[in-house]
């Protein structure tokens, strides 16, 4: 699946997007964030406080307990500050 990052999540991870294949044991958005946080220093920094990170699956807002199976694109970003 494709992951995309925005704002300070993008800056901390150090890239705007990437393709990943998480292990089968990772089934929800919250578990994906936990798994990503263990991928290295940049990821640990980006995901050290998952409660402040919002997620979208295929361009729709989702909650942390949402299943990721079948997702083509998952986005992680800080709370929005548009308008």
């Amino acid at each position, binding site marked *: 699946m494709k992951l*995309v990052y*925005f*704002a*300070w999540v993008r800056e901390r991870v150090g890239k705007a997007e990437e393709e990943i294949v998480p292990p089968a044991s990772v089934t929800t958005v919250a578990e994906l964030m936990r798994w990503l946080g263990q991928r290295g220093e940049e990821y640990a920094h980006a995901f050290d406080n998952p409660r402040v990170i919002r997620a*979208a699956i295929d*361009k*729709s*807002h989702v909650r942390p307990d949402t299943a990721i199976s079948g997702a083509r694109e998952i*986005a992680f*970003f*800080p*709370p*929005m*500050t*548009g*308008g």
Partner: protein
Amino acid sequence: MAVTIRLQSENFDAAAEAAALTGGRTDIGAVVTFTGICRGAEDGEPIRALTLEHYPGMAEAEIARHVEQANARWPLIGVTVIHRHGRIAPGENIVLVVTASSHREAAFAAASFLMDYLKTRAPFWKQVERASGSAWVEAKAADDAAAERWVKPAGREAAE
């Protein structure tokens, strides 16, 4: 309902957009035009610019979804939403919401609703640029509270 949604880096002309929405029609009795403008100072400290990042595809979809919700709640004739991205200097426009209806109540309420949702649910992120460096703007609890006030139990619409 006539709907125009645009994301763009260039500035816009709020008066021209409102005129385009109402031109040639006689069923519109009220137009509310809200323009959000980049301030030259934040918390008493001057800023050089704002830079807005957005999630292409999702930003348009989220705005369209909320325009549909507004249309379901109030009798609207037309809505225009324009949101800029990229670097915006103080004094320049950031966002435009134009709502048109037969009567003012619907136009005022729908414009307010759309702005509250744009601030908290549309995937845009502001970075403020100062002489001392750049920083991401933090989401405000007051904006969340403003969006929350539109979530009401069913059956209370008539009170608006």
